[in-house]
């Protein structure tokens, strides 16, 4: 660790060791270790109840850690929370805009909480409304905004103090695809300006698109960490053969792939199968390439398995999650 208390540029944006949160008997976060580097977009992917939000809440001072070390921008989360909060922005999971105020007032009132001089707050507020495309709705009541506009306003509000680290807790949950794209483009823009982004999501697509690195969380633990490609490479394979097959025939298919003859697929070397998963009526076989995935499908079809449907597709984080936990992200 760099300077212990200075909160300088060299310190990681977030650094957690053995970070734990206990509510009574319930362990929401079970001793997680991770570090968010400056300037990257770091994702925490997991189903509802994985401990993502609790982890975020510890980082932005909403709930104190039960155990472990937590440093944000080089400052101690227990001792320096006020100074930390002055330098981070928070986009919470639930919109908590002030419904009694207009769009612009929401930003100005927030500026006051940060102790910004009135002029500074006013200038920034105008710029931020431009940035999130709400300049024309300046005087609108918050209630009159669509879900996507509210989200963008929450993002603008989180930027009023010009934060070095922006924490987004499920930033696009509940948004339609178009609104989601818009939020993503704003996030990319912020990242290109050097703002560190820390986001939680249960959309694997969001994690795959946005994050330089991510951790996969489940039941309060971190199961894997790395870049999306790296994680898929390491824990599954880049291509998946997905075969629609009644569950009672999965075993048969597995045996075939396990011991199957090398000649079947035209005398080629046997496919490098990286693993498989059974998910209801789908058998997922992870391979290293599209060719291999197709070959797996063909081999099974020759044996009379999987006539009902077969896809060769890139492996997703959803597959990865299934591989790591035995459940899909959607099941939660």
């Amino acid at each position, binding site marked *: 660790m760099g300077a212990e208390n200075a909160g300088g540029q060299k310190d990681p944006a977030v650094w957690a060791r053995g970070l734990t949160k206990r509510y009574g008997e319930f362990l929401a976060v079970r001793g997680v270790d991770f570090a968010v580097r400056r300037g990257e977009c770091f994702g925490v992917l997991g189903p509802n109840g994985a401990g993502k939000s609790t982890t975020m809440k510890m980082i932005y001072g909403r709930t104190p850690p039960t155990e472990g070390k937590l440093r944000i921008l080089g400052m101690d989360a227990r001792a320096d929370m006020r100074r930390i909060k002055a330098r981070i922005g928070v986009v919470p999971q639930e919109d908590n805009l*002030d419904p009694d105020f207009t769009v612009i007032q929401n930003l100005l009132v927030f500026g006051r909480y940060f102790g910004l001089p009135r002029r500074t707050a006013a200038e920034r507020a105008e710029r931020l409304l431009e940035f999130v495309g709400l300049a024309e709705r300046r005087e609108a009541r918050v209630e009159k905004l669509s879900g996507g506009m509210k989200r963008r306003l929450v993002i603008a509000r989180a930027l009023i*103090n010009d934060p070095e680290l922006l924490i987004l807790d499920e930033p696009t949950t509940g948004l339609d695809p178009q609104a989601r794209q818009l939020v993503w483009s704003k996030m990319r823009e912020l990242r290109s300006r050097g703002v560190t982004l820390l986001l939680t999501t249960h959309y694997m697509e969001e994690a795959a698109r946005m994050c330089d690195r991510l951790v996969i969380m489940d039941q309060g633990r971190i199961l894997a960490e790395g870049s999306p490609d790296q994680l898929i490479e390491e824990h599954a394979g880049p291509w998946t053969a997905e075969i629609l097959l009644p569950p009672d025939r999965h075993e048969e298919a597995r045996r075939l792939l396990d011991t199957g003859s090398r000649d079947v697929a035209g005398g080629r070397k046997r496919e490098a199968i990286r693993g498989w998963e059974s998910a209801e009526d789908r058998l997922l076989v992870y391979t290293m390439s599209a060719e291999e995935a197709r070959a797996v499908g063909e081999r099974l079809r020759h044996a009379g398995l999987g006539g009902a449907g077969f896809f060769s597709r890139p492996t997703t984080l959803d597959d990865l999650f299934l591989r790591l936990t035995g459940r899909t992200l959607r099941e939660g």
Partner: protein
Amino acid sequence: MDVRAVWAVFARNMDIFRRYWLNNLVSNFFEPFLYLLGMGFGMTRYVTGIDGMSYTAFIAPGIVASTAMFAATFESTFGTYVRMVFQKTFDAIIATPVNVEEVAVGELLYGAAKAGIVGIIILAVVELFGFVPQWHASALLVPLVAVVVGLLFSSLGMTAATLVPQIDHFNYYITLFITPMFVFSGIFFPLGGLPNGVQAVAWFTPLMHAVRMSRELVFGQWTHVAADALWLTVVTAALVWPPVVLLRRKLIR
């Protein structure tokens, strides 16, 4: 505790107050005005006068105090609860450098200020309509009583707000606690005529002291002013801290 942070919370509520000033005035001030008008004009005919004053003049100072009580009570119960639970305003604020204690204190001070503002307005109306023919200069201290009453009842109301499981439960608080106080605090009739037991209970209620003190200040009698001021100060000081602690417990887990 950072004064600027407390100010930011207070100012947020004052912005809302300004934005909805008409609504605020009508809801806080119309009812007491009706009491003054109806009870005053209606009863004055039948009541020859209490302690040498007209009935309207007798009830007017108490109405000022009770209006302060109601303003602070509604603000700190329903108002605080809506901000805390439905609008999640406090969640948004404590994600900034402002902490929970500063939110609580800002809210309490706002309740006190609002009570003071409606107190001044009712007092002005009393003057405008000539409800009290002969003022004493010490009446100018009544808004101060309204502010203290406001702080006291904001503290009680906010304590309730952090404890109730749902918003309907404020009805118990208001019906079983606030309304009886309104009726039996000596606004509408002197407590001297009531059984000793009732008088003893009344001594423990904040509003009784506020009503008596306001009345004495308006008429320039100083019999109980010092004792009531002391009572209100001590009790307010004791009641301010619990909601601050309870709000932290409610929001930070």
